């Protein structure tokens, strides 16, 4: 088996002419399809202005960008900002915070929907199954601001529900401020993600489960397989490709801690453990005006993300899975 890198299939069929035998000159095509091209124009303009212009804008990571000199006038400084990032005091902390959150995310938030989907799939009563699904999807549609606000009213020291329960339960009269303490930050962030994302995450696995051929279960039953053996030998193998694809997609976001959530949960008291690349970019760039430096941080994160997604796709193929590209 060829073990070369993951890119070729997409690049190979060249974009120029999509399986049309009659090649028409460009001018003729533009004239013939003028309405279609006209309709395409606003959308293309959007992608050029708001997606590709910023991609060009990352060049300021290699400049000392000054707003009044602009992209072309600002002096080039090579890798200065990257050196500053990698040798600076923040990098190790940012990387650690980001990776710890990513690891916890994979351990709990990524796996929870698989487990919940399997549990839902085993429910006998359809009404119950559908009602539970409807309820656990709800948080997906709520904003992170709302989730953070809910966390606040549940965990706050002065009137929070959890603190009150702990006081009653443990007879502890000290007010524990979960929201302000470093030690609770990661637990709370992961709990939020579980609450917000688990239900929604089950959709795709439930669809994969619904597609399993009933004959496989029939055959397994004939062979005397118990429910748990059926789960192990029929259900799990059936959703493995879906899990792999989801894992590849997730790996590209490994360094994406989710700006909104983390930013909303960061306070001056927990900054040491809370600050991740995403929030640091905002902090250094927009708040402190170091545009070039924080663009370099963002670029590092973006490139690492691309490498991760292609890397895990390659890995998935090596392990005999279908992969994404």
């Amino acid at each position: 088996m060829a073990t070369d890198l993951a890119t070729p299939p997409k690049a190979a069929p060249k974009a120029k002419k999509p399986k049309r035998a009659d090649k028409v000159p460009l001018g003729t095509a533009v004239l013939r399809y003028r309405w279609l091209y006209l309709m395409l124009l606003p959308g293309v303009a959007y992608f050029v202005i708001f997606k590709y212009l910023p991609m060009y804008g990352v060049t300021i990571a290699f400049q000392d960008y000054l707003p009044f000199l602009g992209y072309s006038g600002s002096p080039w400084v090579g890798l200065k900002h990257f050196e500053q990032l990698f040798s600076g005091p923040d990098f190790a902390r940012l990387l650690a915070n980001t990776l710890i959150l990513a690891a916890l995310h994979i351990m709990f938030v990524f796996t929870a929907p698989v487990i919940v989907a399997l549990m839902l799939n085993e429910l006998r009563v359809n009404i119950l199954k559908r009602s539970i699904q409807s309820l656990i999807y709800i948080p997906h549609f709520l904003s992170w601001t709302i989730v953070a606000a809910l966390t606040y009213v549940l965990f706050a020291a002065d009137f929070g529900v959890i603190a009150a329960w702990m006081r009653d339960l443990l007879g502890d009269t000290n007010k524990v401020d979960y929201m302000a303490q470093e030690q609770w930050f990661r637990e709370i962030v992961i709990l939020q993600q579980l609450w917000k994302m688990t239900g929604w995450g089950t959709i795709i696995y439930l669809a994969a489960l619904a597609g399993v051929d009933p004959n496989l279960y029939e055959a397994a039953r004939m062979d005397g397989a118990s429910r748990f053996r059926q789960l192990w030998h029929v259900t799990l193998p059936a959703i493995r490709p879906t899990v792999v694809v989801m894992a590849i997609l997730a790996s590209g976001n490994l360094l994406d801690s989710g700006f909104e959530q983390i930013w909303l949960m960061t306070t001056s008291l927990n900054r040491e453990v809370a600050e991740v690349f995403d929030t640091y970019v905002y902090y250094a760039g927009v708040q402190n005006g170091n545009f070039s430096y924080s663009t370099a941080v963002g670029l590092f994160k973006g490139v690492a993300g691309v490498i991760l997604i292609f890397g895990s796709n390659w890995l998935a193929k090596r392990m005999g899975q279908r992969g994404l590209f």
Partner: protein
Amino acid sequence: MTTMTETEPGKQAAVNHNNSVGSRVFDVLNVVALVGLALITVLPLIYVLAASFATEPEIASRPFFLWPEKIVTEAYEYIFATPTFIRSLLTTVIVTAVGMVVQVMLTFTMAYPLAKRYLPGRTLVLNLVIFTMVFSGGMIPTYLVVRDLGMLDSYWALILPLAINPFYLIIVKSFFQELPQALEEAARIDGCNEMGVFFKIVLPLSKPIIATFSLFYAVAIWNDYMSPLLYITDPDKWTLQILVRQLVATDPAAALSQMDRTWVPPEQGVKFAIIVIATLPILFFYPFLQKHFAKGVLIGGVKE
């Protein structure tokens, strides 16, 4: 759980449920766990709703309740009497409505030509779109583009940078590809150009999917916190999500002093009430959203 009987087979026959003791114990535990999960999901929301109508002493003394002892509306009265809140609510409603229309129009007009396999250059554009899903310029370069366009402190900054969601675009494109071609050809023979076909034939056929993505886009703008945080600095232009943040998480007294105070606010009650107000529209549209989203997500997950 007495609701579970062996005679109730459920509608999907795919999974074999035999009736051994182990199997039944599993069923019971499974139901208990899943019902527990559903409760954990909704109970906080019900508590917030109940607390928003409760008196301050009750919020302070009862750790958790689903129904207030005495129903009061002073938190809502206070909020609705403050100009800051009214302004931010209006802002959010208008930005959401305008944004939704702009985003849906841009997405659908772009998706339609991309659905035409014979269109030269289509694959190139598609690949460029897909590439933006893997890599982006990042927050600061995007911020600089928005700034250079003079859109800081403008409501357009909350709409245009998010005008097309690439995932939605590809889902809509897939949907257009599955429309029967015969209809379009008939219209073309009757003298319609592509624009006419699109507006007279294709869009009317797409009403359900337009409704779906209108809601998706509306929810996204309504819930957006990052764009107003990045692009809006003028407190007069705050959106609801920023206000929620200001009222609940940061020092409420400071945020409230921005609200022209005429009487002493029910401090905790205001927090609960603002959460309810910011959540309510979503929950109102939720049944409509839920009807369509699963399918949308699946097409999005499977294709490309």
